[in-house]
């Protein structure tokens, strides 16, 4: 019999603690598969965040750090700068990366650190029980904005991919989604491209994943996929926002 589906050796066999229907698990799998396909696993060091994926160090089948809340890009900088032959990635939620860790991500990107950030945007703080995130949608309810996010009070959700794409430093910046099999297949290609750029020592690479949190959105897994498609996609447009090639012929300084 031909084997058509199997565990990825990029992940450990430990069952994850993610809620049913949560797409953190899908994104883990894409990362694990990519590390295997590119032959990177044995020289990879991942950095787990604080958030629902805090235990990611138990799931990725490579050397792993657990960082403090928001600081994964700084930890990755320390690792990659001192051992440049390693493949280094951070895996971070939206509270971790876009709130408490905003300084670290912007400056890592701006220095052109040669690692990959996997940014899981689920528009909420999952781990702490559904509080408002910097990425929470306008009028979306959360436990700290029970009447829905008031943009006059909390501002508009931050589009991190677009924000990082404004930096002059060459980088690969993209936003993908995993709410449907089609998009998941595309997301994998983009992720692969990011790790390839890293392996070439080319540039900083950033992939934002739109992800679901059925538990704190108060929706079933299927409803969550639809909500992501209807509410998040129009605001968080998918696609590659910046490529290192864009820089060629760009500003040059003496």
């Amino acid at each position, binding site marked *: 019999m031909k084997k058509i589906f199997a565990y990825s050796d990029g992940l450990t066999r430990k069952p994850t603690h993610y809620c049913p229907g949560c797409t953190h698990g899908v994104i883990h799998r894409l990362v694990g598969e990519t590390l295997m396909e590119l032959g990177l*696993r*044995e*020289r*990879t*060091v991942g*950095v787990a965040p604080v958030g629902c994926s*805090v*235990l990611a*160090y*138990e799931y990725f*089948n*490579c*050397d*792993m*750090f*657990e*960082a*403090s809340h928001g*600081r994964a890009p*700084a*930890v*990755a*900088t*320390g*690792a*990659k*700068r*001192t*051992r440049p032959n*390693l493949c280094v990635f951070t895996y971070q939620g939206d509270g971790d990366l876009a709130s408490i860790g905003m*300084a*670290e991500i*912007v*400056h890592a990107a701006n*220095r052109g650190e040669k690692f990959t950030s996997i940014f899981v945007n689920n528009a909420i703080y999952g781990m702490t029980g559904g509080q408002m995130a910097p990425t929470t949608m306008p009028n979306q309810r959360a436990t700290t904005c029970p009447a829905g996010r008031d943009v006059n009070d909390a501002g508009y959700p931050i589009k991190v991919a677009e924000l990082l794409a404004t930096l002059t430093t060459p980088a690969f910046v993209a936003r993908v989604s995993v709410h449907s099999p089609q998009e998941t297949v595309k997301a994998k290609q983009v992720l692969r491209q990011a790790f390839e750029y890293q392996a070439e020592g080319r540039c900083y690479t950033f992939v934002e994943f739109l992800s679901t949190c059925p538990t704190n959105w108060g929706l079933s897994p299927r409803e969550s996929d639809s909500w992501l498609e209807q509410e998040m996609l129009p605001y968080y447009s998918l696609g590659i926002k910046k490529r290192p090639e864009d820089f060629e012929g760009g500003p040059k300084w003496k």
Partner: protein
Amino acid sequence: MTKVLMKGNEAIGEAAIRAGCLHFFGYPITPQSEVPEYLSKRLPEVGGQYVQAESEVAASNMIYGAAGVGMRVLTTSSSPGISLMAEALSYIACCELPVVVVNIMRCGPGLGGILPSQSDYFQATKGTAHGDFDIIVLAPSSVQEAVDLTIISFELAEKYRNPVMVIGDGMIGQMMEPVSFPDKEIGPPLDPGDWGLTGCKDRPRRIVNSLYLDPDLLYQQNIKLKEKFELIKQNELRFELYNCDEPYDLLLVGFGMMARICKTAIDQLKAEGLNVGLFRPITVNPFPYEACAEAIGRSKSVISVEMNMGQMIEDVRLANVEGKPVDFFGKTGGLIPAVEEVQDKVRESLAAMKK
């Protein structure tokens, strides 16, 4: 060994290189900025790398990353910056990684001022950050000693896999003194042993982590850290006794540059026929309680002399097992107690004893 005239901050940077540290992550702050400035020039010359972090929060997490992959690493800062490094130090201590941090202390609290102080004694020795852990803290009192202790710091950090902090006041960082360095140009690289994250080729994967959701396991880690520090207490206490060979009625206790001022005061008092001893802890954490107790035991009373509002005095009191009178003399805010002021305090104290 030839001597060169060097500013304390630059000498600390050079000492790190001689110890084999080729990686520095830091952020400018007076009065330590000459360390990053010096290393940004020197490290590329020796095949190392300087990275200017966006903040001390980031710098300290960068050293966590570098130490975690088994590389020897340094960061330096001054008081407000060290407050921002607290978070990472707690993580690094729990993960048992070797890092060296230098605090060239300025006066506080708040933004305080840029002048020298010893106001971060409590922060360094007692409450560096959240959770149960200790860091080794060394206090040099000359530029040469800053060099020597910086080199020793790397040895200690690696021997115990624990953060080590060198605390110098702004004076040590800024003044120039003749120093000599070990002849050996650059020390050998750190061995990432069975813990560094170097990629899991031909071995099981490794994890650098401080999360323990199981209370029994976290408690075991707490005990492990405690036992390690007990070992450090047994093996690594350093101190200096000055003018303690002849009988003395009064003992001064001072660390860092303050001890040097005390020494000058003691030398001059000797000419007046007043014999005063000095106990200078070099490891301020762990504090050499027994040696201090012994020195206090031979005195009638003791004065803790500090460039702060009275912090080390609490350790002096703990060492004062015989219940001798303990007094404090010090100043801060950027004011430095003068030799004459120390002498006046000593004379006043000795006169009061006679009454």
